[in-house]
């Protein structure tokens, strides 16, 4: 399980959100044993937390293309 959680932390938002949506769909419509459902639920919760964290903590990264190389962008202010 720890490995899975680590993987979730690396997921981009839309992938995590899409998987969360699939899990909810599956919980709502699928036939699962209680154990399967609990496992899905737990993964869903980790995904939801990850998504919320991304939305909360993300900071826009801006770079600048200069000839063929990427530079940090500093010219905004």
């Amino acid at each position, binding site marked *: 399980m720890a490995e899975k959680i680590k993987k979730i932390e690396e997921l*981009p*938002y*839309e992938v995590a*959100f899409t998987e*969360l*949506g699939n*899990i*909810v769909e599956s*919980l*709502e419509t699928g036939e*699962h044993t*209680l154990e399967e*459902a*609990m496992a899905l*639920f737990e993964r*869903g*919760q980790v995904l*939801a937390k990850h*998504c*919320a964290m*991304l*939305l909360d903590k*993300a*900071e*826009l*990264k*801006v*770079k*600048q*293309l200069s000839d*063929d190389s*990427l530079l940090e*962008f500093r*010219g*905004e202010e």
Partner: protein
Amino acid sequence: MQTEQLSFFRSTTWTVIGITQYIRGLFESDHNLQDVRVRGEVSNFSQPRSGHVYFTLKDESASLRCVMWRNTVMEQSFLPKDGDAVEVHGSITIYEAGGQYQLYADEILPLGRGALYQEFLRLKEQLQSEGLFDESRKRPIPQWPHTIGIITSPTGAALRDMLNTLRRRYPLVNVVLAPTTVQGDDAPPGIAAAIKALNNIIKPDVILLARGGGSIEDLWAFNDPRVAYAIAASEAPLISGVGHQTDFTIVDFVADLRAPTPTAAAELATPDRAELMVSLSEINQRLVRGMLAIIENERWEARNVHHRLERISPSGRIRTDKQRLDEYIIRIGTAINHVIKFQQTRLTGVQQHLSSLNPMAILDRGFAVISKADGKVVRTIGQVKKGELINVRVTDGEFGAKVSGVGSENIHNKSD
């Protein structure tokens, strides 16, 4: 167009509205008047609260009243003031209530830019015929961009607006700015090179090509065929956000999506964090509700199974059997008592019978048992002889006796 013949003597007499409508019909059936472009100097310009615009077009020797309705005014990027030389497009017809003919304007261009406008129309038609604007060419804008390329001036307000918008809406995205001048002769090749460079080096999910508002000359780089062809060749979909709401450039037609402003371009390129948070919280609620429903269902199932189990389990039968067993035990007990009583009764009967068979009882009644010296009971006279000693047993004891005679000869005389 009613004509009313009022009397036999006079020629046709019109009502005012009748003749006015007739004249209006003449104007409106003239194609030249319905698609007309007039140049002149603006005077008496006014825009009352209604939002409609009224002015008069004049030259040295004539004047023409002009109206532009509010809806059209709102689409107009340029509004003239008194003294401006302009070119007005529209249709001329009759304003019945005022008894005047008027130019109903749908476009006002500052004079001198008419030539640029003609060039714009020519290029637009050319590129359109080449298929650059075809809907089938439009690439879909990805819903979740990872990398957004921005082509604009590094110092302009457009860049600041876009970055602020992206920061507010979707800070998860990576932005790569391809800086270029967006005005002047260097702008068209600069923009085209930036499109190519972003595609070759960065491969962004979407490109924003933007510039803040300005005059038609300021925006002219966005009407350049080199830029149009570069957009058409771009692998990444491109959103244009040039000028203001009312400005249309060639770039807007070639772009996969046209945004009215740079800010709007950034909005169209990204999902909104606030909406994402709402839908995230909604889906999280569904997750919890779904799980609770499963647990509740599971609990119900368990209860259900338990009931069914109880119904079919042997413990139920055992209980029934136990009861039946108790009944048996009671019935068996009763039966045994009956048997015992019966046996007891029977036993008492047997005892009575037995006691009635006891020979000693007869002795009570005066009978005696006679036995020989060897103990044999004497039943017949042949068993004894005269003078033989015998034993006589009566009810309370025994005594000895001697046979005085046997048979009739020796019977004692009762009279003796």
